[in-house]
């Protein structure tokens, strides 16, 4: 069917409008539909604004300056990742990378999030003895499992007592 507006192209959109209480049907081609402010399709795939793309684009841009190139060689002392690794994958290697690449990241975060400062909930890390207790408990439970599997029931009973004390 021909487009009701330009009478040239094939119509792809059926537009139903209510005019003065009466329904009016229009058949429009994509261009004429767009002129009337009607988009023929909703984007089938989301923008994937997934800011990741933005992040990577900006990293590539940053790579053009000599300053960025010298920063590229900086290596995280914990996981050995470099800024170049980050640029390639869009992912940091470990928590210490945030310290190693701090100034580049601060700039990036400001552009991506509009801020580089966390204002949300603060984290209270576990007390050291609580952590130690958790590790010990975990180890004891592993040993208890092994003792039971190995049918060392006397040892198992002993370990179970120690777990009870810790709990």
């Amino acid at each position, binding site marked *: 069917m021909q487009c009701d507006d330009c009478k040239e192209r094939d119509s792809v959109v059926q537009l139903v409008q*209510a005019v003065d209480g009466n329904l009016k049907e229009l058949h429009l081609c994509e261009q004429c539909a767009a002129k009337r402010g009607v988009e023929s399709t909703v*984007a089938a795939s989301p923008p994937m604004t997934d800011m*990741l793309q933005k992040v990577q684009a900006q990293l590539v841009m940053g790579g053009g300056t000599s300053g960025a190139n010298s920063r590229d060689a900086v290596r995280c002392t914990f*996981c050995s990742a470099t800024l170049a690794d980050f640029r390639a994958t869009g992912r940091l290697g470990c*928590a210490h990378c945030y310290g190693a690449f701090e100034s580049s990241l601060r700039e990036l975060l400001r552009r991506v999030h509009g801020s580089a400062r966390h204002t949300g909930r603060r984290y209270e*890390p*576990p007390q050291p003895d609580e952590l130690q207790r958790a590790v010990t408990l*975990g180890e004891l439970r592993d040993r208890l499992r092994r003792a039971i599997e190995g049918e060392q029931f006397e040892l198992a009973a002993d370990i179970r007592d120690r777990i009870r004390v810790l709990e």
Partner: protein
Amino acid sequence: MSLDLALLPDGGVSWMDASGEHADIVLSTRIRLARNIEGYAFTGRARDGERLRVLTQVRDAAREVESLSHSVLLRVDELPPADRLLLHERHLVSKELAGLDAQHPVRSGAAVFLGADVGVMINEEDHLRLQSLRSGFGLPAAFAAVQQLDRELGSKVPYAFHDEFGYLTACPTNVGTGMRASVLIHLPGLVLTKEMSKVLASLQQMGLTYRGLYGEGSDVVGNFFQISNQTTLGKTEDELLDDLVRVVKTVIAREEDARRLLLRDAGYIIEDKVWRAYGTLRYARSLTFDEAMNYLSGVRLAVGLKLISGLSVYTLNKLLIFSQSAHLAHAEGRALTESESNLARARYVRQTLANEAATHD
């Protein structure tokens, strides 16, 4: 070993029971918090041994975490691909954790804790993805549950936290609160009245974004949109949630307006569309997934507009989940080719709708 879904709390599908607010428009609410444990490289860079140690440490700590007391731990890395897909289709694990992408096979140490309304993915892109999933529009309740879980788990395992940047994550787009809150919302009215592109554009101005049915990287099918916060840094959790609640409420109101308008001005076209959709679902002998989704969208709209009665939103949610390929294969007890899957889908949908009609006759 095949996965026994009966072992999961509520079969892992309580989120689709249509009990929540605005359940005919908002399918579900999900909040996830990304957390990493100090002392290990992030998952992508960690060695196998490190990931297994992360898993062991979390598993041991979880024994004392009240929020996980009735949960089940599944070693995703030990499940066959069909079962991993099944969990993904139920929206219980991400595509990345399930290792469904040929470029990203399943990682050693990939696991998930599944509780009644909270869960933890282990060794996803971040060591921990704490999540809360519930039926309908329920952001405050979902946040309360996941925050409780976060407090309990965070007091047992040390999280990577930076004074200035907040909770540290593998991808800088998640850093800060580490929070992504999203609602899965059905918007046929806005799509049919061609208002959707305007709504999507205004979402982005508000710092929100949208995705398809299965989250990141998925297409929009059946007029289902996942709306979520885009930024995670520089605002508090409450501010981010308030923004999302406000916008989603507006979107719901605009969807309801669009539906009223459609019914008033194009009633016969809409009625014809939805009854054709129902007729096809009720009698077709072969249905592709996309076809089924689109017709289900029409029928869902009809139920919302009360054009079709005697059909519950819960049944529609069930059809959405159980007509996916891995679920059909699971029900048949064998792998299905694509055309077998289409036949099985049509059969399942037909029977479910016939049963529902018989109960209400």
